[in-house]
């Protein structure tokens, strides 16, 4: 049975290659090109860019912090700002910060391709790529849990504020103690939920037999093969040029 184009495996391979390129390449100009191609591909695949923008906004503080750290730890080139012997801003630092920003943008945009497939299609795709079923299932379950975990954290913050504790008003030393309180329901809630899911899965005979029956076992279409081949050829080509120092 042939699945709707593109197959989950095609998307997984494309995302792996895209993220590998984003990690391997340090040149901001090449990364900017990679981001532009990724965004165009998202538009072509009719995946709303709004999701990418929202995700980027959500991680903005982490991204800004990483960019600042990169800027401070790469003090070379033209110096723009110096305090005593410490170089705070330099062209090398800015270049490195820009590379981090673009790298994370490419990764966040690339992951959006997986939104085209549901969770079961992705598990099937990973198993077809010889990833052990339990591992594929656990990875995707883990990813699915991240928003749940974040929601629990937000709920705990709201619950605490509704008890009259204004986190913005309390001193820093107390703030740390209060945050340790918030971790308790979040972690306990996640553990309770994980235990319930494990029980429910076992009750439905998860791993009871060595072989599984698959409702759908899609085959790659010619278009999938064409896309995989081109993505791999372009990806490895760029990596080779990068390793040789041409780009």
């Amino acid at each position, binding site marked *: 049975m042939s699945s709707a184009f593109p197959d989950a495996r095609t998307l997984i391979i494309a995302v792996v290659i895209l993220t590998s390129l984003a990690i391997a390449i340090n040149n901001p100009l090449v990364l900017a090109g990679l981001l532009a191609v990724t965004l165009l591909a998202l538009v072509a695949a009719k995946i709303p860019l709004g999701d990418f923008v929202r995700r980027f906004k959500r991680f903005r503080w982490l991204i800004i912090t990483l960019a600042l750290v990169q800027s401070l730890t790469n003090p070379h080139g033209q110096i723009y700002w110096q305090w005593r012997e410490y170089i705070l801003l330099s062209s090398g630092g800015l270049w490195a910060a820009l590379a981090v920003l673009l790298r994370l943008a490419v990764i966040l945009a690339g992951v959006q391709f997986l939104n085209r497939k549901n969770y079961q299609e992705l598990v099937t795709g990973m198993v077809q790529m010889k990833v052990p079923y339990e591992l594929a299932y656990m990875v995707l379950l883990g990813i699915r849990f991240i928003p749940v975990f974040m929601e*629990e954290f937000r*709920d*705990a913050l*709201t*619950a*605490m*504020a*509704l*008890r*009259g*504790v*204004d986190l*913005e*008003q*309390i001193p820093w030393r*107390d703030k740390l103690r*209060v945050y340790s*309180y*918030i971790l*308790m*329901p979040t972690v*306990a*809630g996640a553990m*309770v939920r994980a235990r319930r899911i494990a029980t429910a899965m076992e009750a439905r005979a998860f791993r009871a037999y060595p072989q599984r029956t698959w409702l759908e076992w899609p085959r790659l279409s010619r278009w999938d093969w064409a896309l995989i081949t081109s993505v791999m050829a372009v990806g490895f080509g760029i990596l080779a040029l990068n390793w040789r120092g041409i780009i």
Partner: protein
Amino acid sequence: MAFIQLEQINFRWPQGPPLLRDINLALNRQDTVALVGSNGCGKTTLGKLIMGLLSPTQGRVLLDGRPVGDYPLAQRGERVGYVFQNPEKQLFAASVADEVGFALRHRGLNSDQVEAKVEEMLALFELERRRDAFPFNLSHGEKQRLALAAVLALDPEFVLLDEPSTGLDWLRKRKLAQALEKVGQRGVGYIIISHDHGFCRQLCARTLTLEGGKLYE
């Protein structure tokens, strides 16, 4: 002027059909009110609108004459206690006694005052024997009572309870009802969001029904 006032409230989720339409409601400090309706009719949403946790698409919610959003969340929580549908979501301390005393310690009360209030609340909700227990290990009914005790420890002027009787057997329901009767006797009004008509009839002087997005009394 009512303590809580809802004026021409309309609400819809993004890309969703209208959930609440032209809702007007006035709640006084000592009112005991039941908000009933079938599953998914918007009772919890209306509760969250009252608390200012959601913003209406149209209309406004006033708390003591001021838009509810003008109060910081912590101040809202001090004035209107909110007991979540799932009590586990609002328990975060390592022991029952710590759970009740948590917010009091952040109000600048000394330890004797906190201890006295904790004892009073544990006695009121029959949780004395569980004072050192880990809140997550309590039964559902005990968790409900603990959440209520922790909220009432702040001496709110009004309490909003979302589905407090869900999952409770008759004995635990009776205990919760007794606890709520004591709340009413202390002069604190409440609104119970529920589809348990029997439970509400026993405890509330007013009944509001939410149906098709409209509120009927």
